């Protein structure tokens, strides 16, 4: 069944048992909205030097956007910012591939559980769901770095 390519077990698992959900202390906070469906996420990043110490989040959304935030937390916490950025870029590439990119071993090594989202890239309306938390993370990290640590809220678009 084609639907299984989107709703991989890994995704449903993350959806039902999200990692690191809830808001904790952070250096920057952002609030992102997906205007086409109303999905929302509030996300905080806490840095320790150039290491990502925590990504905490709360939000409303479908299984794809929720699972994606959970995978993000699992993947990025503990990583160096530069490395995390590379992961984010590879994930973005995969999501924008319209189902035409078959993840290879190298990609799988970078993305770990996140390769499960390959199937979602075939559904344009859902790609934004998968990217919501990642765009929020990118934005929050940039803010945390530029503001040297002050917390702020802003509206943005995934």
């Amino acid at each position, binding site marked *: *069944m*084609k*639907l299984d390519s*989107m*709703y991989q077990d890994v995704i*449903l698992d993350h959806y039902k048992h999200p990692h690191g959900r809830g808001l904790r202390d952070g250096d920057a906070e952002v609030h992102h909205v997906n205007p*086409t*469906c*109303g*999905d*929302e996420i509030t996300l905080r990043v806490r840095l320790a030097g150039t290491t990502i110490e925590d990504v905490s989040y709360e939000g*409303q*959304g*479908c*299984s*794809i956007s*929720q699972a994606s935030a959970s995978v993000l937390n699992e993947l990025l916490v503990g990583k160096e910012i530069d490395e995390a950025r590379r992961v984010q870029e590879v994930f973005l590439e995969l999501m924008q591939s319209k189902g035409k990119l078959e993840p290879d071993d190298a990609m799988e090594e970078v993305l770990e559980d996140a390769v499960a989202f390959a199937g979602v890239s075939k*559904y344009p309306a*859902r790609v934004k*769901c998968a990217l919501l938390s990642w765009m929020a993370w990118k934005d929050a990290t940039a803010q945390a770095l530029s503001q040297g640590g002050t917390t702020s809220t802003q509206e943005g678009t995934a």
Partner: protein
Amino acid sequence: MTHLPGLLDTEAIRKDFPLLDRTVHDGKKLVYLDNAATSQKPRQVLDALNDYYEKSNANVHRGVHTLAEEATALYEGARDRVAAFVNAPSRDEVVFTKNASESLNLVANMLGWADEPYRVDRDTEIVITEMEHHSNIVPWQLLAQRTGAKLKWFGLTDEGRLDLSRIDEVITERTKVVSFVLVSNILGTVNPVETIVRRAQEVGALVVIDASQAAPHMPLDVQALGADFVAFTGHKMCAPTGIGVLWGRQELLEDLPPFLGGGEMIETVTMSSSTYAPAPHKFEAGTPPIAQAVGLGAAVDYLSAIGMDRIEAHEHALVQYAVDRLCQVPDLRIIGPVTAEDRGAAISFTLGDIHPHDVGQVLDEQGIAVRVGHHCARPVCLRYGIPATTRASFYLYSTPADVDALVDGLEHVRNFFG
């Protein structure tokens, strides 16, 4: 096959709609339940479009050649048909726009630029409701921001109806305009026009009715409504995209200033000043949506031949059946009236804590097309504390079998995420 009293002969009707034969996802029969977003188009309307383009296409109003006369007659003939369809006292009260959103923006802008007694300014108030489509919220927010007028609104009851308990405090002597939806696209609620119009008239406020979800589904009589302006949109009523209607009372259309300027809407132009054509042309700047108006005329003929009262009865029976069956689905909560009384053919619901996006996706895989999200009525979602809904909406070609497919589909959704 379930038989309900009042149903139309959908077997015959469905033959008119080529798209309904489509299959999706490797041969699954399409079950189209997204009619509140847009309707499908009957062969008769597509034929009218092709005929127009293949035989009579020309620009209107300014030509003496044969094609131009034919195109003008077709375009203005569509205006006659639409005027008759909504029982307008005069054909000149029917303005063609690009969609209902433009119609509503047109009114808001006219009132912002009008002279007294119509002018909306900082000392005046605008009243809308919490169940409006964004297209009947944002134009008034913009008008309020730009003029300094105050925007007020009626809230909603837990049952999904307008809370009119404080109507005299909401609509006051300062109210210049009251704009509300006749049938909600998200809740399905049919609103009590008379109560609101009576109070508005008491204080001398203009009344604008958003009939986008009414015109396709029930007899519409602008004189009986008692409103000053009525807006609706072609694509939801078997007509092409790209055409909307604003009906307005003649003396208002005469008194109010134009909105868009350009060709067609003028009487005479010099470099330093212009005078304007009488309504409706005053409000139709530029080459109008000619083919789309012709298509709307054909749609109105098609619907009238079946009978708007019979379409209303058909949908009523179907909604009754759907509400009953949906109420039996575990964890399903209808957002809006849980009855078929004073209710249109759109039914929104939540399904446990399965997100509507996921509901819609799994239904789509089974060929069932529903809409998910806030349906351009986000304040309603906020009001009921939900992020979004799943919405099934019916039309003249919908059947009890469609409802059954939906209910089975929802069972599948529950299992999938169970």
